[in-house]
């Protein structure tokens, strides 16, 4: 507030001391101050001419009734919780803990996902398939194919009768499999009684077995 405004306030309320009145008169020499003083005098005159309005006794109730209905307590509580400005105090320990949470989440997310892979296809029915070979002179017969990564010592055929009739039964999913027998760990032999054959590209023939999907598993059957 300027000095003139202080004196003006006192002048309008009639509380100026004689020295202040003299000072005020001096300041009125400025045209700007004179205009301000004139405007204030007109305002005071206007206000003085107004008739005093006395509100009715029901005025407060009427105003309250005309206000819009307030939100429910729970919603307003939630609203305040979400939007009310807050001061969050933090320190280095809290920041480190939050960083750790983020790192842990990132590290464990992939492992959690990989532990629960989404099954691409439903459990297919397996078929038990018996592979057998008559090899009276063989001591040891094993089976290798694309069902076991062509490992030659995984699936060993048993000669139950002791007369060189080797056999093994495997559970296989529907599909087509190529295979060969391995005699005494060294000689590869094509199953002479296979359903079908394919050149293996290396100068031999693989035996082929087709395991059909059960009827009804494919709408096209």
């Amino acid at each position, binding site marked *: 507030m300027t000095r003139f405004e202080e004196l003006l306030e006192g002048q309008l309320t009639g509380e100026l001391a004689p020295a202040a009145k003299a000072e005020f008169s001096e300041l009125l020499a400025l045209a700007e101050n004179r205009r301000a003083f004139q405007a204030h005098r007109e305002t005071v005159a206007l206000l003085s001419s107004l008739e005093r309005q006395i509100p009715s006794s029901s005025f407060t109730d009427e105003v309250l009734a005309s206000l819009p209905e307030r939100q429910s307590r729970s919603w307003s509580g939630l609203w305040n919780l979400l939007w009310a400005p*807050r001061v*969050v*105090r*933090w320190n280095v*320990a*809290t920041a480190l*803990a*939050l960083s*750790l*949470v983020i790192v*842990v989440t990132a*590290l*464990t997310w992939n*492992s959690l996902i990989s532990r629960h892979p989404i099954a*691409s*296809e439903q*459990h297919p*029915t*397996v*078929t*038990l*398939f*018996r*592979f*057998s070979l008559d090899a009276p002179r063989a001591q040891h017969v094993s089976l290798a194919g*694309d*069902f*076991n*990564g*062509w*490992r*030659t010592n995984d699936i060993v055929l048993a000669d139950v009768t002791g007369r060189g009739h080797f*056999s093994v*039964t*495997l*559970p*296989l*999913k529907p*599909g*087509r*499999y*190529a295979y060969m027998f391995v005699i005494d760990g060294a000689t*590869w032999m094509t199953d002479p*009684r*296979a*359903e*079908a*054959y*394919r050149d*293996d*590209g*290396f100068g*031999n023939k693989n035996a082929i077995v087709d*395991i*059909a999907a059960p*009827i009804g598993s*494919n*709408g*096209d*059957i």
Partner: protein
Amino acid sequence: MATFRFVGIASLVVMALGVPCVSEAIAETSKPGELSRTVEAANLSPEGKALLRAKGTEAIRAGVAEHEVAGVIQRGVGRGVQPTELVRLLDVVAQAKRQDLPAGPVLDKVKEGLAKRVPPARIAGVAERLASELATSRDLVRRAEQKGIRAESRGERERATEAVADALGKGVSPKELDDLSRGIARSSERATMSRLQAGAQVTADLVSMGLSPRDATETVGAAVTRGLSQRDIERLRERLGQELKRGGSVETGAKRLRDAVRSERPDDRPERGPDKGPDKPEKPEKIEKMEKPEKPTRVEKPGR
């Protein structure tokens, strides 16, 4: 102050829960990978080990499973294959994977070659040719889809791709296989990838039985055009076998089979199923199949 306490308590709880997870994750990452363990255990020079480690890592980045890469290296080293030769084999598999081809058959072929002690250069050649057939096959399968043949899963599409590649490997031309897929798309039966897979596979089988690729395609095409079901298409192998037993040349047998197929109506086909009908398919006597409907499978088909 309440907020501060809440954050502090929550952080402590999360840390308590997170410590076991973190320690497990750290333990997991600190384990040497299967590739590293295999390479370290191999009786090779440091240069050879470094080369295999680098190429193995490349193959893994291309999408080949680490245990498969390690398995190839382990088997190759065990067979005395030189690192430079093993690198070429890994490259063929990785390249197939990069091209988004079904890399399983290529990997299987590499494993098969190593198991049979085939010279690595020959394995690589056969695997590269297979990859090339799979690439052509993949394009044919894509075109088949554009013609309206529906693939219900990625697996179904991959199996069809493998079967078409098999037919290509038997000398069936891309055009003949294109015609086959067109026939399937126009057939009254459902146009599905499994039907294309069966058609391509039976075509390859008929070629294996002695038919020319053209005769084989024509025979399967006749069955497709006639609206035979997938199972009946698969039975063409047995029916050709029966025709061949009647005597005459392979071409004559195939012609008789085609004539029979063309004269069939969908409702007077031979009885379906292994135990029905007069021309029950001949099974090798050693084969016994037993359905086990509920037991989940334990045998995986590697790479598929």
